Protein backbone atom coordinates (compact mmCIF):
# COMPACT_ATOMS: atom_id res chain seq x y z
CA UNK A 1 0.00 0.00 0.00
CA UNK A 2 1.31 3.40 -0.95
CA UNK A 3 1.83 5.94 1.83
CA UNK A 4 -0.70 8.54 0.70
CA UNK A 5 -0.23 11.09 3.48
CA UNK A 6 3.14 11.93 5.05
CA UNK A 7 3.81 12.43 8.73
CA UNK A 8 3.72 16.15 8.10
CA UNK A 9 0.17 15.78 6.78
CA UNK A 10 1.23 16.37 3.21
CA UNK A 11 -0.25 14.42 0.34
CA UNK A 12 1.57 12.61 -2.48
CA UNK A 13 1.56 15.72 -4.67
CA UNK A 14 2.67 17.90 -1.79
CA UNK A 15 -0.75 19.37 -1.04
CA UNK A 16 -2.09 20.07 2.42
CA UNK A 17 -5.15 18.07 3.49
CA UNK A 18 -7.61 20.80 2.59
CA UNK A 19 -5.77 22.17 -0.42
CA UNK A 20 -7.16 22.13 -3.96
CA UNK A 21 -5.05 21.38 -7.01
CA UNK A 22 -4.46 24.26 -9.46
CA UNK A 23 -7.53 25.07 -11.57
CA UNK A 24 -7.46 26.86 -14.91
CA UNK A 25 -10.69 27.64 -16.73
CA UNK A 26 -11.17 29.33 -20.11
CA UNK A 27 -14.48 29.97 -21.84
CA UNK A 28 -15.34 30.50 -25.51
CA UNK A 29 -12.65 28.15 -26.81
CA UNK A 30 -14.59 26.46 -29.62
CA UNK A 31 -15.86 27.92 -32.88
CA UNK A 32 -18.81 25.61 -33.51
CA UNK A 33 -20.44 25.16 -30.13
CA UNK A 34 -22.79 27.91 -28.91
CA UNK A 35 -20.87 27.99 -25.67
CA UNK A 36 -17.74 26.24 -24.47
CA UNK A 37 -15.31 25.99 -21.60
CA UNK A 38 -12.01 24.22 -21.10
CA UNK A 39 -10.84 23.33 -17.63
CA UNK A 40 -7.53 22.04 -16.33
CA UNK A 41 -7.97 20.87 -12.76
CA UNK A 42 -4.83 19.12 -11.59
CA UNK A 43 -4.08 16.91 -14.55
CA UNK A 44 -7.75 16.70 -15.50
CA UNK A 45 -8.24 18.21 -18.95
CA UNK A 46 -11.89 18.58 -19.83
CA UNK A 47 -13.72 20.30 -22.66
CA UNK A 48 -17.39 21.22 -22.29
CA UNK A 49 -19.59 22.50 -25.10
CA UNK A 50 -23.22 23.57 -25.26
CA UNK A 51 -25.79 23.89 -28.04
CA UNK A 52 -29.18 25.50 -27.67
CA UNK A 53 -31.84 26.37 -27.11
CA UNK A 54 -32.47 24.58 -30.42
CA UNK A 55 -35.15 22.51 -32.09
CA UNK A 56 -35.85 19.30 -30.19
CA UNK A 57 -35.19 15.99 -32.02
CA UNK A 58 -36.99 13.63 -31.92
CA UNK A 59 -40.01 15.89 -31.56
CA UNK A 60 -41.99 13.59 -29.27
CA UNK A 61 -39.40 14.21 -26.57
CA UNK A 62 -40.08 17.96 -26.48
CA UNK A 63 -41.64 19.26 -23.26
CA UNK A 64 -44.60 21.65 -23.44
CA UNK A 65 -43.54 23.87 -20.56
CA UNK A 66 -39.75 23.95 -20.66
CA UNK A 67 -36.61 23.07 -22.59
CA UNK A 68 -35.43 19.47 -22.61
CA UNK A 69 -31.96 19.22 -21.11
CA UNK A 70 -29.68 16.62 -22.70
CA UNK A 71 -26.28 15.76 -21.39
CA UNK A 72 -23.40 13.51 -22.34
CA UNK A 73 -20.30 12.80 -20.27
CA UNK A 74 -17.72 10.97 -22.35
CA UNK A 75 -14.08 10.01 -21.92
CA UNK A 76 -11.59 10.02 -24.78
CA UNK A 77 -9.93 6.61 -25.25
CA UNK A 78 -6.54 8.05 -24.26
CA UNK A 79 -7.80 9.88 -21.18
CA UNK A 80 -6.99 7.12 -18.69
CA UNK A 81 -4.06 4.82 -18.02
CA UNK A 82 -5.62 1.87 -19.82
CA UNK A 83 -7.28 2.56 -23.14
CA UNK A 84 -11.01 3.22 -22.69
CA UNK A 85 -13.10 1.69 -25.51
CA UNK A 86 -14.87 4.48 -27.43
CA UNK A 87 -18.46 3.31 -26.87
CA UNK A 88 -20.08 4.66 -23.68
CA UNK A 89 -19.54 2.50 -20.60
CA UNK A 90 -22.18 1.99 -17.91
CA UNK A 91 -20.20 4.40 -15.74
CA UNK A 92 -20.36 7.10 -18.41
CA UNK A 93 -24.10 6.53 -18.85
CA UNK A 94 -24.70 6.90 -15.12
CA UNK A 95 -22.53 10.02 -14.90
CA UNK A 96 -24.31 11.61 -17.87
CA UNK A 97 -27.55 11.31 -15.92
CA UNK A 98 -26.08 12.47 -12.62
CA UNK A 99 -24.45 15.51 -14.25
CA UNK A 100 -27.64 16.38 -16.09
CA UNK A 101 -29.59 16.27 -12.82
CA UNK A 102 -26.91 18.37 -11.14
CA UNK A 103 -27.06 21.10 -13.79
CA UNK A 104 -30.81 21.06 -14.39
CA UNK A 105 -31.97 23.17 -11.40
CA UNK A 106 -29.57 25.98 -12.35
CA UNK A 107 -30.95 26.52 -15.85
CA UNK A 108 -34.07 28.57 -16.51
CA UNK A 109 -35.49 25.82 -18.69
CA UNK A 110 -39.01 27.23 -18.57
CA UNK A 111 -37.89 30.19 -20.70
CA UNK A 112 -37.60 27.92 -23.77
CA UNK A 113 -40.53 25.50 -23.99
CA UNK A 114 -40.38 22.80 -26.71
CA UNK A 115 -36.65 23.33 -27.36
CA UNK A 116 -33.59 21.31 -26.41
CA UNK A 117 -30.40 22.35 -24.65
CA UNK A 118 -27.46 20.00 -25.15
CA UNK A 119 -24.47 19.79 -22.84
CA UNK A 120 -21.43 17.75 -23.89
CA UNK A 121 -18.52 16.99 -21.63
CA UNK A 122 -15.40 15.36 -23.06
CA UNK A 123 -12.74 14.22 -20.65
CA UNK A 124 -9.45 14.45 -22.52
CA UNK A 125 -7.41 13.45 -19.50
CA UNK A 126 -8.84 12.16 -16.27
CA UNK A 127 -7.19 12.57 -12.89
CA UNK A 128 -9.65 12.06 -10.07
CA UNK A 129 -12.74 14.15 -9.24
CA UNK A 130 -13.43 14.43 -12.95
CA UNK A 131 -17.21 14.59 -12.51
CA UNK A 132 -16.93 17.73 -10.40
CA UNK A 133 -14.51 19.33 -12.85
CA UNK A 134 -16.96 18.36 -15.60
CA UNK A 135 -19.93 19.99 -13.90
CA UNK A 136 -17.89 23.11 -13.27
CA UNK A 137 -16.83 23.36 -16.91
CA UNK A 138 -20.33 22.56 -18.16
CA UNK A 139 -21.77 25.25 -15.93
CA UNK A 140 -19.31 27.76 -17.39
CA UNK A 141 -20.08 26.63 -20.94
CA UNK A 142 -23.82 27.13 -20.32
CA UNK A 143 -23.17 30.66 -19.13
CA UNK A 144 -20.83 31.23 -22.09
CA UNK A 145 -23.68 30.18 -24.40
CA UNK A 146 -25.78 32.97 -22.90
CA UNK A 147 -28.38 30.60 -21.49
CA UNK A 148 -30.22 32.22 -18.55
CA UNK A 149 -29.17 30.63 -15.26
CA UNK A 150 -30.33 30.94 -11.68
CA UNK A 151 -26.87 30.18 -10.32
CA UNK A 152 -23.68 28.37 -11.26
CA UNK A 153 -23.14 24.76 -10.27
CA UNK A 154 -19.72 24.10 -8.80
CA UNK A 155 -18.34 21.68 -6.29
CA UNK A 156 -15.56 19.67 -4.81
CA UNK A 157 -14.93 16.00 -4.21
CA UNK A 158 -13.79 15.34 -0.68
CA UNK A 159 -12.57 12.02 0.63
CA UNK A 160 -11.13 9.94 3.39
CA UNK A 161 -7.53 8.86 2.98
CA UNK A 162 -5.61 7.09 5.72
CA UNK A 163 -8.45 7.96 8.07
CA UNK A 164 -8.11 11.66 7.29
CA UNK A 165 -10.59 13.92 5.53
CA UNK A 166 -9.04 15.56 2.45
CA UNK A 167 -10.26 18.01 -0.18
CA UNK A 168 -10.14 17.50 -3.97
CA UNK A 169 -9.42 13.78 -4.22
CA UNK A 170 -6.73 12.88 -6.77
CA UNK A 171 -6.65 9.83 -9.01
CA UNK A 172 -4.41 7.81 -6.68
CA UNK A 173 -6.32 8.89 -3.60
CA UNK A 174 -9.57 7.82 -5.24
CA UNK A 175 -8.19 4.37 -6.10
CA UNK A 176 -6.21 3.67 -2.95
CA UNK A 177 -8.05 5.81 -0.43
CA UNK A 178 -11.09 4.87 1.66
CA UNK A 179 -13.84 7.24 0.59
CA UNK A 180 -14.69 9.44 -2.40
CA UNK A 181 -17.50 11.94 -1.80
CA UNK A 182 -18.22 14.31 -4.70
CA UNK A 183 -20.51 17.23 -3.94
CA UNK A 184 -21.87 19.76 -6.43
CA UNK A 185 -24.12 22.67 -5.48
CA UNK A 186 -25.44 26.10 -6.30
CA UNK A 187 -23.68 28.45 -3.89
CA UNK A 188 -26.12 31.32 -4.05
CA UNK A 189 -29.26 29.22 -3.83
CA UNK A 190 -27.68 26.93 -1.22
CA UNK A 191 -28.85 23.74 -2.91
CA UNK A 192 -26.91 20.51 -3.24
CA UNK A 193 -27.53 19.07 -6.74
CA UNK A 194 -25.03 16.19 -6.84
CA UNK A 195 -24.10 14.01 -3.92
CA UNK A 196 -22.54 10.58 -4.09
CA UNK A 197 -20.22 8.58 -1.91
CA UNK A 198 -18.55 5.26 -1.58
CA UNK A 199 -16.61 3.90 1.36
CA UNK A 200 -17.40 3.88 5.08
CA UNK A 201 -17.88 7.13 7.00
CA UNK A 202 -19.02 7.67 10.57
CA UNK A 203 -21.53 10.41 11.32
CA UNK A 204 -18.82 12.83 12.40
CA UNK A 205 -16.60 12.07 9.44
CA UNK A 206 -19.45 12.66 7.04
CA UNK A 207 -20.33 15.97 8.59
CA UNK A 208 -16.73 17.16 8.53
CA UNK A 209 -16.22 16.07 4.92
CA UNK A 210 -19.51 17.55 3.76
CA UNK A 211 -18.69 20.92 5.34
CA UNK A 212 -15.26 20.90 3.73
CA UNK A 213 -16.75 20.19 0.30
CA UNK A 214 -19.11 23.17 0.57
CA UNK A 215 -16.33 25.46 1.72
CA UNK A 216 -13.97 24.47 -1.09
CA UNK A 217 -16.77 24.58 -3.63
CA UNK A 218 -17.33 28.24 -2.80
CA UNK A 219 -13.71 28.87 -3.68
CA UNK A 220 -14.18 27.10 -7.03
CA UNK A 221 -17.16 29.39 -7.61
CA UNK A 222 -14.86 32.42 -7.47
CA UNK A 223 -12.63 30.89 -10.14
CA UNK A 224 -15.55 30.25 -12.47
CA UNK A 225 -16.92 33.73 -11.98
CA UNK A 226 -13.56 35.26 -12.81
CA UNK A 227 -13.19 33.13 -15.94
CA UNK A 228 -16.64 34.11 -17.16
CA UNK A 229 -15.91 37.77 -16.58
CA UNK A 230 -12.66 37.44 -18.49
CA UNK A 231 -14.45 35.66 -21.32
CA UNK A 232 -17.09 38.35 -21.39
CA UNK A 233 -14.52 41.13 -21.50
CA UNK A 234 -12.57 39.22 -24.15
CA UNK A 235 -15.61 38.91 -26.40
CA UNK A 236 -16.58 42.53 -25.82
CA UNK A 237 -13.12 43.67 -26.84
CA UNK A 238 -13.24 41.43 -29.89
CA UNK A 239 -16.52 43.02 -30.93
CA UNK A 240 -15.27 46.51 -30.42
CA UNK A 241 -12.21 45.63 -32.39
CA UNK A 242 -9.65 46.09 -29.58
Amino acid at each position, binding site marked *: MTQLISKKNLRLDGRKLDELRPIKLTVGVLKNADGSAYIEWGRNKIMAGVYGPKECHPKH*MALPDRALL*KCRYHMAPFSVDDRKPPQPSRREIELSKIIREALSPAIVLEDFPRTAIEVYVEVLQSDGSSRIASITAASAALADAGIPMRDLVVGCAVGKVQDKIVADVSDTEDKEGQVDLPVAFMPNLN*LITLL*QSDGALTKDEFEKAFKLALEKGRYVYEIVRDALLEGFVGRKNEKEGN
Partner: protein
Amino acid sequence: MSAEERKHEFVDSIRREQVFRTLETGVRLDGRKMDEYRKIKIEVGPIVKADGSALVQIGNTKALVGVKVLVGTPFPDTPDEGILTVNADILPIASPYEEPGPPDESTIELSRVVDRGIRESHMVDMESLVLEKGKKVYSVFVDVTVLDVDGNLFDAVSYAAVVALATTKYRKATLKGDQVVFSEKRVPLKPKTIPSSVTTAKIGRALVVDPDWVEEAVMDARLTLTFNSNNELCAMQKGGTFGFTPEEILKQMEVARAKAKENRAILKEAIEGAKKK
Protein backbone atom coordinates in the same frame (compact mmCIF):
# COMPACT_ATOMS: atom_id res chain seq x y z
CA MET B 1 -27.00 10.68 -24.15
CA SER B 2 -28.97 11.45 -21.06
CA ALA B 3 -32.30 13.24 -21.30
CA GLU B 4 -35.23 13.63 -18.95
CA GLU B 5 -37.77 10.85 -19.23
CA ARG B 6 -41.39 11.72 -19.52
CA LYS B 7 -42.77 8.92 -17.36
CA HIS B 8 -43.67 11.31 -14.62
CA GLU B 9 -45.56 13.68 -16.83
CA PHE B 10 -48.38 11.21 -16.59
CA VAL B 11 -49.44 12.08 -13.07
CA ASP B 12 -52.21 14.58 -13.53
CA SER B 13 -52.22 17.89 -11.75
CA ILE B 14 -55.13 16.93 -9.48
CA ARG B 15 -53.21 13.95 -8.12
CA ARG B 16 -50.12 16.11 -7.76
CA GLU B 17 -52.11 18.67 -5.81
CA GLN B 18 -53.51 15.92 -3.56
CA VAL B 19 -50.04 14.65 -2.65
CA PHE B 20 -48.84 18.11 -1.68
CA ARG B 21 -51.95 19.09 0.24
CA THR B 22 -52.00 15.86 2.24
CA LEU B 23 -48.30 16.22 3.08
CA GLU B 24 -48.96 19.68 4.48
CA THR B 25 -51.25 18.06 7.03
CA GLY B 26 -48.39 15.82 8.12
CA VAL B 27 -49.52 12.55 6.54
CA ARG B 28 -49.08 10.93 3.15
CA LEU B 29 -51.66 10.11 0.53
CA ASP B 30 -51.75 6.43 1.55
CA GLY B 31 -51.93 7.34 5.24
CA ARG B 32 -48.30 6.63 6.08
CA LYS B 33 -46.19 8.76 8.38
CA MET B 34 -43.22 10.61 6.91
CA ASP B 35 -40.71 8.04 8.11
CA GLU B 36 -42.84 4.95 7.59
CA TYR B 37 -42.11 2.16 5.11
CA ARG B 38 -44.78 0.17 3.35
CA LYS B 39 -45.00 -3.52 4.31
CA ILE B 40 -41.80 -5.37 3.31
CA LYS B 41 -42.35 -9.02 2.28
CA ILE B 42 -39.43 -11.35 1.58
CA GLU B 43 -39.47 -14.82 0.02
CA VAL B 44 -36.12 -16.60 0.13
CA GLY B 45 -35.06 -19.10 -2.53
CA PRO B 46 -37.94 -19.14 -5.04
CA ILE B 47 -35.58 -19.98 -7.91
CA VAL B 48 -33.96 -23.32 -7.19
CA LYS B 49 -31.91 -23.22 -10.40
CA ALA B 50 -30.05 -20.16 -9.05
CA ASP B 51 -27.38 -20.48 -6.36
CA GLY B 52 -29.28 -17.93 -4.29
CA SER B 53 -32.51 -16.02 -4.86
CA ALA B 54 -35.02 -13.76 -3.20
CA LEU B 55 -38.29 -12.07 -4.05
CA VAL B 56 -38.86 -8.80 -2.23
CA GLN B 57 -42.06 -6.78 -2.19
CA ILE B 58 -42.33 -3.27 -0.80
CA GLY B 59 -46.00 -2.46 -1.19
CA ASN B 60 -46.78 -3.24 -4.82
CA THR B 61 -43.15 -3.02 -5.93
CA LYS B 62 -41.85 -6.49 -6.68
CA ALA B 63 -38.20 -7.42 -7.37
CA LEU B 64 -36.76 -10.88 -7.96
CA VAL B 65 -33.02 -11.53 -7.73
CA GLY B 66 -31.16 -14.65 -8.76
CA VAL B 67 -27.48 -15.18 -8.00
CA LYS B 68 -25.24 -17.42 -10.11
CA VAL B 69 -21.65 -18.12 -9.15
CA LEU B 70 -19.57 -18.99 -12.20
CA VAL B 71 -15.84 -19.11 -12.84
CA GLY B 72 -14.11 -16.46 -14.94
CA THR B 73 -10.91 -14.51 -15.50
CA PRO B 74 -10.19 -11.69 -13.03
CA PHE B 75 -9.85 -8.06 -14.15
CA PRO B 76 -6.19 -7.24 -14.85
CA ASP B 77 -6.11 -4.55 -12.15
CA THR B 78 -7.58 -6.82 -9.44
CA PRO B 79 -5.92 -10.21 -10.03
CA ASP B 80 -6.56 -11.29 -6.42
CA GLU B 81 -10.27 -10.58 -6.28
CA GLY B 82 -13.39 -12.31 -7.51
CA ILE B 83 -15.87 -10.56 -9.79
CA LEU B 84 -19.25 -9.15 -8.75
CA THR B 85 -21.75 -8.03 -11.38
CA VAL B 86 -25.14 -6.50 -10.68
CA ASN B 87 -27.42 -6.38 -13.68
CA ALA B 88 -30.98 -5.09 -13.49
CA ASP B 89 -33.86 -5.57 -15.90
CA ILE B 90 -37.14 -3.74 -15.40
CA LEU B 91 -39.66 -5.81 -17.33
CA PRO B 92 -42.11 -4.13 -19.69
CA ILE B 93 -44.91 -5.73 -17.66
CA ALA B 94 -43.58 -3.96 -14.57
CA SER B 95 -44.68 -0.53 -15.77
CA PRO B 96 -46.43 0.98 -18.78
CA TYR B 97 -43.44 3.34 -19.16
CA GLU B 98 -40.88 0.58 -19.68
CA GLU B 99 -39.99 -0.60 -23.17
CA PRO B 100 -38.35 -3.90 -24.09
CA GLY B 101 -34.69 -3.48 -25.00
CA PRO B 102 -31.31 -2.90 -23.42
CA PRO B 103 -31.32 -1.15 -20.02
CA ASP B 104 -31.91 2.61 -20.11
CA GLU B 105 -29.99 5.08 -17.97
CA SER B 106 -32.33 4.76 -14.98
CA THR B 107 -31.93 0.99 -14.97
CA ILE B 108 -28.17 1.31 -15.27
CA GLU B 109 -28.14 3.79 -12.38
CA LEU B 110 -30.26 1.34 -10.35
CA SER B 111 -27.78 -1.50 -11.02
CA ARG B 112 -24.80 0.64 -10.17
CA VAL B 113 -26.24 2.10 -6.97
CA VAL B 114 -27.22 -1.34 -5.69
CA ASP B 115 -23.79 -2.63 -6.74
CA ARG B 116 -22.00 0.15 -4.83
CA GLY B 117 -24.08 -0.48 -1.72
CA ILE B 118 -22.96 -4.10 -1.71
CA ARG B 119 -19.40 -3.51 -2.86
CA GLU B 120 -18.57 -0.56 -0.61
CA SER B 121 -20.02 -2.25 2.47
CA HIS B 122 -17.62 -5.15 1.76
CA MET B 123 -20.51 -7.57 2.23
CA VAL B 124 -18.88 -10.09 -0.11
CA ASP B 125 -15.33 -11.14 0.68
CA MET B 126 -13.91 -10.64 -2.79
CA GLU B 127 -10.51 -12.03 -1.86
CA SER B 128 -12.01 -15.35 -0.83
CA LEU B 129 -13.29 -15.79 -4.40
CA VAL B 130 -9.93 -16.48 -6.02
CA LEU B 131 -9.12 -19.90 -7.49
CA GLU B 132 -5.73 -18.95 -8.91
CA LYS B 133 -4.44 -15.41 -8.66
CA GLY B 134 -4.58 -13.55 -11.95
CA LYS B 135 -6.01 -16.60 -13.73
CA LYS B 136 -9.30 -17.86 -12.42
CA VAL B 137 -11.74 -16.45 -9.91
CA TYR B 138 -15.38 -16.91 -9.03
CA SER B 139 -17.64 -14.54 -10.89
CA VAL B 140 -20.80 -13.69 -8.97
CA PHE B 141 -23.73 -12.59 -11.14
CA VAL B 142 -26.52 -10.81 -9.30
CA ASP B 143 -29.33 -10.65 -11.83
CA VAL B 144 -32.34 -8.53 -11.00
CA THR B 145 -35.77 -8.85 -12.58
CA VAL B 146 -38.22 -6.16 -11.57
CA LEU B 147 -41.76 -7.49 -12.00
CA ASP B 148 -43.94 -4.63 -10.80
CA VAL B 149 -43.05 -0.99 -10.17
CA ASP B 150 -44.65 1.13 -7.47
CA GLY B 151 -41.76 3.31 -6.37
CA ASN B 152 -38.57 2.85 -4.38
CA LEU B 153 -36.89 0.32 -6.63
CA PHE B 154 -33.54 1.17 -5.10
CA ASP B 155 -34.40 -0.32 -1.73
CA ALA B 156 -36.46 -3.24 -3.05
CA VAL B 157 -33.71 -4.35 -5.40
CA SER B 158 -31.02 -3.80 -2.80
CA TYR B 159 -32.88 -5.92 -0.25
CA ALA B 160 -33.50 -8.70 -2.76
CA ALA B 161 -29.85 -8.69 -3.80
CA VAL B 162 -28.61 -8.69 -0.21
CA VAL B 163 -30.89 -11.54 0.87
CA ALA B 164 -30.11 -13.58 -2.26
CA LEU B 165 -26.36 -13.14 -1.75
CA ALA B 166 -26.52 -13.85 1.97
CA THR B 167 -28.30 -17.14 1.30
CA THR B 168 -26.23 -18.15 -1.73
CA LYS B 169 -24.64 -21.58 -1.74
CA TYR B 170 -22.37 -22.23 -4.68
CA ARG B 171 -20.66 -25.28 -6.06
CA LYS B 172 -17.00 -25.38 -5.12
CA ALA B 173 -14.66 -25.35 -8.09
CA THR B 174 -11.10 -26.56 -8.40
CA LEU B 175 -8.59 -26.19 -11.18
CA LYS B 176 -7.02 -29.19 -12.88
CA GLY B 177 -4.48 -27.60 -15.17
CA ASP B 178 -6.51 -25.24 -17.30
CA GLN B 179 -9.81 -26.96 -16.62
CA VAL B 180 -12.38 -25.99 -14.05
CA VAL B 181 -13.95 -28.89 -12.16
CA PHE B 182 -17.08 -28.28 -10.12
CA SER B 183 -17.74 -30.43 -7.08
CA GLU B 184 -21.22 -31.34 -5.89
CA LYS B 185 -20.43 -29.76 -2.55
CA ARG B 186 -21.96 -26.37 -1.98
CA VAL B 187 -20.40 -23.68 0.16
CA PRO B 188 -22.15 -20.60 1.50
CA LEU B 189 -21.11 -17.11 0.37
CA LYS B 190 -20.76 -15.84 3.93
CA PRO B 191 -21.72 -12.17 4.19
CA LYS B 192 -19.30 -9.99 6.16
CA THR B 193 -21.93 -7.37 6.80
CA ILE B 194 -25.58 -6.77 5.90
CA PRO B 195 -25.85 -3.47 4.04
CA SER B 196 -29.17 -1.74 4.48
CA SER B 197 -30.39 0.80 1.96
CA VAL B 198 -32.79 3.62 2.77
CA THR B 199 -34.26 5.92 0.17
CA THR B 200 -35.71 9.26 1.10
CA ALA B 201 -37.39 11.88 -1.05
CA LYS B 202 -38.03 15.59 -0.89
CA ILE B 203 -41.52 16.64 -1.95
CA GLY B 204 -41.97 20.39 -1.61
CA ARG B 205 -40.95 21.03 1.97
CA ALA B 206 -41.58 17.48 3.16
CA LEU B 207 -38.99 14.73 3.55
CA VAL B 208 -40.34 11.18 3.37
CA VAL B 209 -38.86 7.67 3.29
CA ASP B 210 -39.81 4.88 0.86
CA PRO B 211 -41.56 7.03 -1.77
CA ASP B 212 -44.20 5.21 -3.79
CA TRP B 213 -44.72 5.75 -7.52
CA VAL B 214 -46.92 8.82 -7.20
CA GLU B 215 -44.56 10.41 -4.72
CA GLU B 216 -41.60 9.74 -7.02
CA ALA B 217 -43.57 11.30 -9.84
CA VAL B 218 -43.93 14.59 -8.00
CA MET B 219 -40.75 14.64 -5.88
CA ASP B 220 -38.03 17.26 -6.23
CA ALA B 221 -35.12 15.01 -5.42
CA ARG B 222 -34.18 11.65 -3.98
CA LEU B 223 -31.41 10.45 -1.71
CA THR B 224 -30.43 6.80 -1.32
CA LEU B 225 -28.17 5.97 1.61
CA THR B 226 -26.66 2.59 2.41
CA PHE B 227 -25.33 1.70 5.82
CA ASN B 228 -23.20 -1.28 6.89
CA SER B 229 -23.86 -3.38 9.98
CA ASN B 230 -21.99 -0.81 12.12
CA ASN B 231 -24.50 1.68 10.77
CA GLU B 232 -21.76 3.64 9.05
CA LEU B 233 -22.69 5.29 5.78
CA CYS B 234 -21.01 3.31 3.00
CA ALA B 235 -22.68 4.57 -0.18
CA MET B 236 -24.92 7.44 -1.19
CA GLN B 237 -26.62 8.68 -4.34
CA LYS B 238 -28.65 11.82 -4.93
CA GLY B 239 -31.13 11.74 -7.81
CA GLY B 240 -33.77 13.97 -9.33
CA THR B 241 -33.69 17.32 -11.06
CA PHE B 242 -33.79 19.55 -8.02
CA GLY B 243 -31.60 19.91 -4.92
CA PHE B 244 -31.41 19.66 -1.15
CA THR B 245 -30.23 22.25 1.34
CA PRO B 246 -27.29 21.12 3.47
CA GLU B 247 -29.62 20.97 6.48
CA GLU B 248 -32.00 18.67 4.63
CA ILE B 249 -29.11 16.34 3.80
CA LEU B 250 -28.06 16.11 7.44
CA LYS B 251 -31.63 15.56 8.61
CA GLN B 252 -32.27 12.80 6.07
CA MET B 253 -29.01 11.16 7.01
CA GLU B 254 -30.19 10.67 10.57
CA VAL B 255 -33.68 9.53 9.68
CA ALA B 256 -32.14 7.03 7.27
CA ARG B 257 -29.61 5.78 9.78
CA ALA B 258 -32.43 4.78 12.12
CA LYS B 259 -34.53 3.21 9.37
CA ALA B 260 -31.54 1.27 8.06
CA LYS B 261 -31.25 -0.47 11.39
CA GLU B 262 -34.94 -1.40 11.46
CA ASN B 263 -34.88 -2.73 7.92
CA ARG B 264 -31.64 -4.64 8.46
CA ALA B 265 -33.45 -6.54 11.20
CA ILE B 266 -36.11 -7.57 8.66
CA LEU B 267 -33.44 -8.72 6.20
CA LYS B 268 -31.63 -10.68 8.90
CA GLU B 269 -34.82 -12.39 9.99
CA ALA B 270 -35.45 -13.57 6.44
CA ILE B 271 -31.85 -14.78 6.07
CA GLU B 272 -31.86 -16.62 9.38
CA GLY B 273 -35.27 -18.10 8.67
CA ALA B 274 -33.95 -19.57 5.42
CA LYS B 275 -30.92 -21.10 7.09
CA LYS B 276 -33.07 -22.99 9.57
CA LYS B 277 -34.96 -24.78 6.82
